[in-house]
């Protein structure tokens, strides 16, 4: 009688019983015996009908225990085995209880197996719902868990609830400044795929997708990330692009969307959360790439970004081999339409032409038994993004090589001239010093600085700026580049010379700029080479970003008259007012506050504006 001392004990008793029923090694006979004994006791005490709640509680607890052991086990299906065990055990218990209960004529317990199944689905989907965000991170490894959850959704019809809970998790864990844009994009793509598995009609997709889309639109680098993903061949987006389905059109007429909906017999109304602002219906069948592109109202931003990334890759390409880029452009054409890719086609044609011209120049040089180390990419200026011009005079030896190339070009293409773009390109050269020789790949301007030292091994900063016809600001970083590599050294303030031997280079390492050079020159030739390449690239990246920012500010110069007009009419204005009004006068120009600030700062430097207390005013 001890076991029936209190309610708690009752629960424990059933709980244990149930655990036994789940097959923990207890023999079936023993199980039946103990249940029979227990029920007998209850009947005797005439309390079986009071204990119904306890039985159900015990079942709940047993299910909870069972479900909780499956936390984070996503790599295999686990709902079905649990369901089998639990339903089987529940029906055994049910039969026993009924048998003994009805004998006494006192109880009418609902079918336990149905109850247990519903409870199981509820508890299991609650568990997976709370884990869904992490499951999506692990997708597709967590595919079995998603399938389990789908089974629950089929029984419980709680997709809405799941989506709302996922949205909460997304807002908490994903949409914050700590997450990188590419992480958010990856998670967004996986989320779309998972939700489509869970709910093939995609009616609730928008509940989760919308906050992510809204957030992504706020980030500056979203377009760049998508385009980068789109063209890297391992990515899923690339597969979408390669499949060539679904041409993305700019805003189609709304009417067509409704027609499509009417034709669709499995149509379901959109949930309230998924307001049709983003034309969800159209998006249901769209592939992931279309979904990403539709984050923005216009496809132009993607075309522009693709052009920029294509230009960068083509200019970095050293062997004129554009097979991969050609394929990308073809695929982009299928997706975005031919006219959008016209500029890209001109770029590719420039590459093909350059290859032919280069071959001609090589042949011509060979005929004259002259070396031609230069391989040029000749671009059509109007079709490539403008580059920041660097103004300096090439040392005669380098200029001579270019002139020879240009000479052959001009004889091939009459009435045309070449304009060299000094901020692009790469020079690989061999530096022979007295006790060592190094091969480095550097930018033309860096090579030019070193060439300036060829005739006079010792130059002051002033002589250097005269020789290269440029400013100190231009020369100094390039001189530092060579100082760091131990090829130049600073013998006294502003006087540099070639470090012909290592020994003296070490001795000079006491001077401020020489510090780094000592550690570098201790490497032998090969090690120094790799260092050089690394350093060169790093610097190049920094400079090119600075250059594009400058170019963007420079582009604002054409609007300076508007700004002058504004400041004349309204008096001093803060940055955001100027930005707002520019947006009003020039819709379509996506000027960012950053660009405008840079531009206005430039105007202040040029003494055309004054900045007083955050307000810009005319001089």
């Amino acid at each position, binding site marked *: 009688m001890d076991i029936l001392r209190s309610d708690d004990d009752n629960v424990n008793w059933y709980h244990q019983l149930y655990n036994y029923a789940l097959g923990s090694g207890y023999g079936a006979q023993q199980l039946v015996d103990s249940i029979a004994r227990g029920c007998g006791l209850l009947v005797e005490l005439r309390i079986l009908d009071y204990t119904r709640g306890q039985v159900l509680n015990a079942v709940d607890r047993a299910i909870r225990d069972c479900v909780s052991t499956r936390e984070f086990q996503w790599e295999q299906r686990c709902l079905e085995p649990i369901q089998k065990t639990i339903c089987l055990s529940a029906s055994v218990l049910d039969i026993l209880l009924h048998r003994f209960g009805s004998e006494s004529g006192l109880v009418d317990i609902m079918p336990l197996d149905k109850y247990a199944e519903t409870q199981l689905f509820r508890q299991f989907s609650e568990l997976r719902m709370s884990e869904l965000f992490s499951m999506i991170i692990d997708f597709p490894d967590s595919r079995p868990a998603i399938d389990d959850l789908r089974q629950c959704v089929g029984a419980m019809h709680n997709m809405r609830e799941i989506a709302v809970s996922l949205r909460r998790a997304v807002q908490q864990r994903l949409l914050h400044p700590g997450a990188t844009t590419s992480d958010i994009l990856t998670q967004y793509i996986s989320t779309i795929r998972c939700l489509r598995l869970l709910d093939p009609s995609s009616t609730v997709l928008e509940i989760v997708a919308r906050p992510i889309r809204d957030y992504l639109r706020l980030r500056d680098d979203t377009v760049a990330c998508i385009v980068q993903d789109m063209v890297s061949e391992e990515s899923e987006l690339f597969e979408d692009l390669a499949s060539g389905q679904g041409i993305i059109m700019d805003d189609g007429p709304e009417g067509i969307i409704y027609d499509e909906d009417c034709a669709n017999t499995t149509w379901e109304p959109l949930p309230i959360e998924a307001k049709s602002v983003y034309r969800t219906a159209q998006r249901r069948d769209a592939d992931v790439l279309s979904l990403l592109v539709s984050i923005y109202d216009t496809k132009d931003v993607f075309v522009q970004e693709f052009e920029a990334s294509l230009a960068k890759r083509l200019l970095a390409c050293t062997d004129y081999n554009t097979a991969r880029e050609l394929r990308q452009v073809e695929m982009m054409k299928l997706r975005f339409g031919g006219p959008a890719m016209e500029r890209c086609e001109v770029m590719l044609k420039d590459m093909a032409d350059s290859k032919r011209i280069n071959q001609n120049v090589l042949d011509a040089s060979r005929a004259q038994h002259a070396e031609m180390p230069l391989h*040029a990419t*000749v671009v059509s200026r*109007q079709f490539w993004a403008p580059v920041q011009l660097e103004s300096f005079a090439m040392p005669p030896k380098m200029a001579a090589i270019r002139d020879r190339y240009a000479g052959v070009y001009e004889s091939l293409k009459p009435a045309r001239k070449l304009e060299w773009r000094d901020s692009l390109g790469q020079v690989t050269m061999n530096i*022979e010093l007295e006790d060592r020789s190094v091969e480095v790949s550097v930018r033309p301007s860096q090579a030019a600085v070193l060439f300036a030292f060829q005739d006079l091994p010792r130059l002051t900063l002033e002589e250097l700026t005269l020789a290269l016809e440029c400013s100190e600001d231009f020369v100094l970083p390039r001189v530092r580049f060579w100082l760091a590599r131990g090829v130049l050294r600073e013998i006294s303030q502003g006087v540099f010379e070639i470090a012909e031997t290592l020994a003296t280079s070490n001795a000079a390492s006491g001077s401020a700029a020489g510090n780094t050079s000592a550690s570098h020159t201790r490497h032998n030739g090969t090690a120094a080479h790799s260092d050089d390449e690394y350093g060169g690239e790093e610097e190049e990246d920094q400079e090119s970003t600075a250059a594009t920012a400058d170019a963007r500010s420079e582009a604002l110069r054409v609007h300076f008259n508007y700004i002058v007009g504004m400041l004349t009419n309204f008096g001093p204005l803060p940055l955001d007012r100027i930005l707002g009004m520019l947006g009003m006068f020039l819709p379509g120009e996506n000027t960012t506050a950053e660009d405008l600030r840079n531009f206005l700062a430039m105007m202040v430097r040029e003494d055309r504006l004054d900045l007083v207390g955050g307000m810009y005013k005319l001089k």
Partner: protein
Amino acid sequence: MKLTITDWKDVAGWRWDVPDDEVCGICRVPFDACCPTCKTPGDDCPLIWGECSHVFHMHCLLKWLEAETSQQQCPMDRRPWVTAK
């Protein structure tokens, strides 16, 4: 110190040998871009020089000369159009 350039990957932009910032007098598009009917500049859309020293996209000028109102004159100075050799 001896410097030898072993490989030089360089980038250049080409331009027609015409004064800076000039646009075709007929289509008002820069010479370095192509006329409105073409898609690729350069060889596919060449320029034409007249003896009167005026320059146009070749396609633009031919279309102009085909028009009856042109009376085979240069659109800029109305002198009879003679293509420069």
